[in-house]
């Protein structure tokens, strides 16, 4: 028996959430095989050993350079068989989650997504998942021998536990049906810290008064090596791209630090940030509801406080 981990990459590097998936699988105890699809840097693949993979498979078929859900499903189902794996672990994402769904049906596995913790195995195999958009958790038992587990960010800490391993090429056979969904083109932000992956997020709301004022938030984000986010009205008004909108109907983030500037803290916004470890709120209204969900708060004008904060951070480096 082994555990298979599907690792996702962006710009040739393994995503941090996938390193967490490798760490999670390592903590489960059985030998871990990681599998990467499409173009990934060799060094990044070898380094998966450090996070707990005994073996790394690389399906470098160029047709897998884009994340095609059904093709990825076929490859992972076959790899589970080849590796005699009962468990597939992966990270929740726009690719990972639908792939998890399809693999679970094809393999007859018990499926859980949005998983937040290592399983309790004293009686059965029980995982905890985040539900009601972060407002609650459900403990569910995965009863089938085969299991597919998709992790929410921070379900395990990516720690170095081993050393580099050799990477084995993995040959795939793919059919036309695997490419029924044809990817025509894509637009991806490059060189930026991706919001769902970020350790620190600097987020702005309607209090920022307009797209032209985002410079001070971007400067703060750059100083902290953070991703930028926003509230829903901000993306609705086109001040920021849709993929930066955080909340119930947007991205759910789980960074170490979330800095909210000029955001009132509506419950739908909080739903996307309540898994953050620490929350800082900067708002000129002392009664803004966001302060109740914050760890640290400053009542003040964003246009005054943010540049000063950026300066203080630079000075403290």
């Amino acid at each position, binding site marked *: 028996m082994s555990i298979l981990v599907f690792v996702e990459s962006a710009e040739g590097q393994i995503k941090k959430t996938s390193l967490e998936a490798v760490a999670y699988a390592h903590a489960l105890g059985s030998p871990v095989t990681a599998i990467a699809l499409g173009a990934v840097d060799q060094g990044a693949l070898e380094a998966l050993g450090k996070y707990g993979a005994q073996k790394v498979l690389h399906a470098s078929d160029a047709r897998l350079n884009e994340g095609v859900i059904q093709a990825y499903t076929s490859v992972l189902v076959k790899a589970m068989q080849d590796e005699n794996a009962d468990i597939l672990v992966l990270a929740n994402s726009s690719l990972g989650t*639908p792939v998890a769904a399809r693999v679970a049906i094809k393999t007859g596995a018990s499926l859980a997504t949005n998983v937040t913790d290592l399983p309790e195995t004293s009686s059965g195999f029980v995982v905890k998942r985040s539900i009601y958009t972060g407002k*609650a958790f459900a403990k569910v038992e995965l009863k089938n021998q085969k299991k597919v587990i998709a992790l929410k960010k921070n379900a395990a800490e990516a720690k170095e536990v081993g050393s580099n391993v050799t990477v084995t090429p993995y040959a795939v056979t793919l059919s036309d049906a695997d490419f029924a969904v044809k990817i025509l083109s894509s637009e991806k932000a490059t060189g930026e810290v991706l919001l769902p992956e970020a350790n620190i997020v600097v987020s702005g709301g309607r209090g920022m008064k307009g797209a032209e004022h985002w410079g001070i938030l971007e400067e703060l984000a750059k100083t902290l090596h953070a991703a930028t986010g926003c509230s829903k009205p901000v993306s609705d008004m086109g001040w920021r791209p849709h993929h930066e909108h955080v909340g119930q109907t947007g991205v759910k983030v789980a960074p170490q630090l979330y800095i909210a500037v000029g955001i009132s803290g509506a419950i739908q916004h909080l739903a996307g940030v309540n898994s953050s470890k620490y929350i800082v709120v900067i708002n000129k209204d002392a009664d803004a509801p966001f302060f109740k969900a914050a760890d*640290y708060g400053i009542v003040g004008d964003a246009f005054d406080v943010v540049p000063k904060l950026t300066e203080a951070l630079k000075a403290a480096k």
Partner: protein
Amino acid sequence: MKILVCITHVPDTTSKINFTDNNTKFDPTGVQFIIGPYDDYALARAIEIKEANAGTTVTVLNVGTADTEPTIRKALAIGADDAVRVNAEPTDSLFVATQIAEHAKSVGYDLILMGRESIDYNSGVVHGIVGELLGMPSVSPVMKLDIEGTKAKLAREIEGGKEYVEVSLPFVAGCQEPIAEWKIPNMRGIMSARTKPLKVVEPKAVDSGVKLQQFELPPPKGAVKMIAADNVAELVSLLKNEAKVI
């Protein structure tokens, strides 16, 4: 063209969540229920497609107990033609998806629209499972959907961007904004919804391999530490030395 829209009946986004029976049951006391916000986008897009294409019908489906009927009627008031309720507690994703797939097989839809995720279970998998069960492609989360004859062009949101894809009908899509604007029922819609057909069918048994043990609420948040606006250095020091996050 026949379109199926699958809707959930979920607590309003402002609801406080509580459980009863030793944390094994959701407590609906004082909770207002709505159509899942993402499902509402799917429904709105389906109605737009219907309005632009004569002869198109929109059926809504919910797997739920009789309590969900007001929510189903609201979808009919928004403009769906008829509805199906599979009479069961929606216990898990495979159970729900199996009921949807069974119904879809019996009718043969050209397009099955859902939300990207439910806001109670947040699984994000029912569309993928239905696709797999019906042998159809599935695409999610979809921000734009245009039908062009027997094909469709879609925009799918990915981390940090978008992907443009093409797929032949039939397929399953999990929708999100800005695919369409939410629609509000008008008086005529509300009146006509009362007499539109709502069929109740019994579920198929499924052994899903997943069993709920218990719900849990997150621990309460500690009190906020306030820092003076002219003392940002203190914030920096707290983030460094107390929170240890920078």
